[in-house]
């Protein structure tokens, strides 16, 4: 999985540069070019910071996301409760941190999974053509016409009590299809390019051609797709949780927190303000990192 993603984004992730002083390999060049984009690096730093905050934050607070302070109901932010408390006396900071852990992992993992799946299925279908293409696209079309919400609703009782990572896989499984079709179309047009022909006549194997030549050349699409999928995943998780699937109480996610807080958003803004603010920050920094990565991979980009 990890190797696959490296390949998809860098193409040469598993190889060291040819000769450090002279010919940097593609992966080395991409890292260097990414490093030159200040905004993207800042975005990456914010993202790493948020991760650290989500996992280290709860250790700093004396409240846990399940504990209740029966001396403070619906209190605004203060020294004891940094982000205030809820109607039941739960600490909003602890809840937000816990929610952010969930949302960050769900969002990034779902985006990664679904984009990778779309890239691999679409590229293989488009490159190989013939019956492979027909079977894969038939499967994609089948998934497209099945109402995903219904399936999730039917299946979730079966998963109750099991790890919520299953939920990540389910979410990813229902958002990759359209991208896979786009990737297939782009692959078909790339398949006849001379550099792909040249690689084929060199004896390069099919999977290598796909990971080294096809996917890097549609990386702009894949990166945009992945960044959009981060927000889609976080938002659909909220929707599903609202209907009782997905993340369930006492577990929280940013989505459930926002959903719970919106009703009183005007009177008790701290209930949802922090969760919403962090969500915006996550999506924003993912987008900035995505843009930077796209420019770094594309040698024709203006800011090179």
């Amino acid at each position: 999985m990890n190797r696959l993603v490296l390949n998809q984004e860098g193409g040469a992730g598993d190889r060291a540069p040819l000769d450090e002083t002279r010919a940097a390999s593609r992966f080395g060049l991409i890292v260097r070019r990414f490093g030159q984009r200040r905004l993207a690096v800042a975005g990456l730093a914010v993202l790493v910071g948020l991760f650290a905050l989500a996992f280290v934050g709860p250790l700093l607070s004396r409240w846990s996301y399940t504990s209740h302070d029966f001396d403070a109901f619906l209190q605004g932010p203060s020294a004891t409760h940094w982000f205030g408390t809820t109607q039941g006396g739960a600490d909003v900071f602890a809840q937000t941190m816990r929610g952010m852990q969930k949302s960050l992992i769900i969002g990034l993992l779902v985006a990664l999974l679904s984009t990778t799946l779309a890239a691999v299925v679409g590229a293989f279908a488009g490159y190989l053509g013939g019956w492979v293409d027909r079977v894969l696209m038939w499967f994609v079309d089948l998934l497209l016409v099945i109402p995903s919400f219904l399936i999730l609703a039917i299946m979730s009782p079966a998963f109750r009590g099991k790890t919520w990572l299953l939920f990540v896989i389910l979410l990813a499984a229902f958002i990759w299809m359209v991208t896979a079709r786009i990737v297939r179309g782009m692959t078909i047009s790339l398949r006849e390019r001379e550099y792909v022909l040249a690689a084929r006549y060199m004896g390069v194997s099919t999977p290598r051609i796909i990971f080294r030549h096809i996917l890097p050349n549609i990386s702009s699409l894949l990166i945009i797709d992945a960044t959009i999928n981060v927000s889609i995943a976080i938002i659909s998780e909220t929707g599903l949780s609202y209907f009782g699937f997905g993340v369930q109480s006492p577990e929280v996610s940013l989505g459930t927190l926002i959903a719970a807080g919106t009703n009183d958003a005007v009177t008790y803004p701290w209930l949802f303000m922090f969760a919403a603010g962090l969500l915006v920050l996550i999506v924003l920094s993912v987008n900035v990192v995505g843009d930077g990565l796209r420019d770094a991979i594309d040698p024709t980009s203006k800011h090179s």
Partner: protein
Amino acid sequence: MTSTAVGSAALEVGDLRVTFAAGDAEVQAVRGVSYRLARGQVLGIVGESGSGKSASALAAMGLLPPSATVEGSIKLDGTELVGLDDRELSSLRGSAIAMVFQDPLSALTPVYTIGDQVSEALLVHNDMSKDQAAARTVELLEAVGIPEAAKRAKAFPHEFSGGMRQRVMIAMAMANDPDVIVADEPTTALDVTIQAQVLEALRNAREATGAAIVLVTHDLSVVAGFADVIAVMYAGRIVETGTVDEVFYAPRMPYTIGLLGAIPRIDAGARRPLVPIDGSPPSLVDMPPGCPFAPRCPLALEICRQVEPELLAVTGSSHRAACHRSDDVAEQHLTPERIFEVASIPPAAAAAVPRSERPVVLELDDMVRHYPLYKGAVFKRRVGTVHAVDGIGLDIREGETLGLVGESGCGKTTTLLQILELAAADRGRVVVLGRDTAELDSDARRALRRDISVVFQDPLASLDPRMPVSDIIAEPLRTHGRSKEQIARRVRELLPLVGLDPEHASRYPQQFSGGQRQRIAIARALALQPRLLLLDEPVSALDVSIQAGIVNLLDELRARLGLSYLFVAHDLSVVRQIADRIAVMYLGRIAEIGEVQDVYAAPAHPYTQALLSAIPVPDPRKERRRRRIVLQGDMPSPANPPSGCRFRTRCQKFAVLDDERRRACLDSDPALVEVSEDHAAACHYAEKVPVV
């Protein structure tokens, strides 16, 4: 042809400047161009890509994009065009000044018939009825040589071939008896026999309308026979101008001299290396002071780098050159070889061994490649067959170059791709380095790929844009399991071998010029030290001065590394330069095959004769004397080849045969028969005739 009598100027351009705004920078595409053209005169504007030749022509038509600023003066019959608004220009465009574009497919609207589009050109500028316009349209189409004009006028553009469409464009251009016709690379996208037809049509258009013609082209040879006056452009300026005889026989500017030396010629005597001009044209943003050609000019002095030379008269009134050293050039009778450094190419070691004793590296025996044509979406049924390659046989021996030539659609690229597949052909045998490809398993096929590699036509398309050069060159090495150290060493070896700086290994292909990119592609092809190189039109996307460098490089590499080439091309003059043997293809068959000297000196097949006679040579006097064989019509579709001899529908020889002798051409397909030693032609009435 020599109507140089200066009457009133039809077109007078004075100090024309065109500047494009590109972001923050300004691209000075045209920097002070002046010329004067009388009625009936033909001006050839010649230059390489980026020289500003098209921009100066489009400016005259007022067809530049809004980002362009035009300064100076363009006078059409005394009317100033610069500064006119679009509505005023529109009334002149098409009536007083007309245009023939490079790509006739995009210049015609696909949803209207040809007749409607020509009529429209008439109706816009004339007060005539639709019937009158339709009748005039048929006349015009006949004038440009469209057969069955009345019937064909009802056809749509996609039903016309490229050459026919270009003739329609000429018909539209001459519709309103314009004073000036601007033709922007009118034959660049066309095959050489079609080019001859289109130039013929353009010549007729000039005679019929008496218009002055501005012919913009990159091909000096086309200009030699067609134009009266020539202007050579470089970096947005005219660097030399004069009558064709003056410029071709007594060039005074090193750039012109270099260009003339860089052109491979079919009429030259013994083969000599071409003269490449090193470097590439300057960027037109922030031009440094001095002569723009100075960085590439071996004659450049200090003054050349500081002061840009004026275009000054050298001899007579019309011949002018912009060069500080034009007098020295004349005094010392400097030839291309004496100005530019020409690499001497060592003779190939293999050439010492007689051909019959050298091992065969590639052998095709009756190879067939057919593509089925299907109809229907759900239940596909086969409705026909495209006979792309229909039984060809040839062999290449070690150290030898075979040129495979023919017009587009003749099956030459299909042949090359079929060989590269290393798979069984539909029929016949493909034997690469002694191994029959039908009998290879996948391991053996992979191993064989090490010994055979390919260079494609467009280097930008054949290099992955997302990979740095070092990775591109390393790819074949990595694929065939070389170690990291070996790969690094080989990449550093290969770059200088093809004339590139190893420092540039971590750049991307886009950062190189066209010729350099092709060098990268050649380096990649050579990485595994192959024995056979398949070259698919490797120089046809390049400018002539760059092309010369690549042709010399290929020639040198072959000699040094003992390579064998299959050189696929449509340009017979390039093939003459590099190949030892030549095979001429027509509609999936080989029409003629033999040693280059024999075939070029006296081709035996009527098709080869027509091809060779259609190629212009950069020699105005010779061009005027030459009698062209202009082939009729276009190549038939390979899905439906004619009975008997495939060439008979266009054959100039068939046309003059009596009925009895035609029988053979109609009924039986001629086999390749030797006309002399190692020279065979597939014609019932093969006869060696010198045509060049």
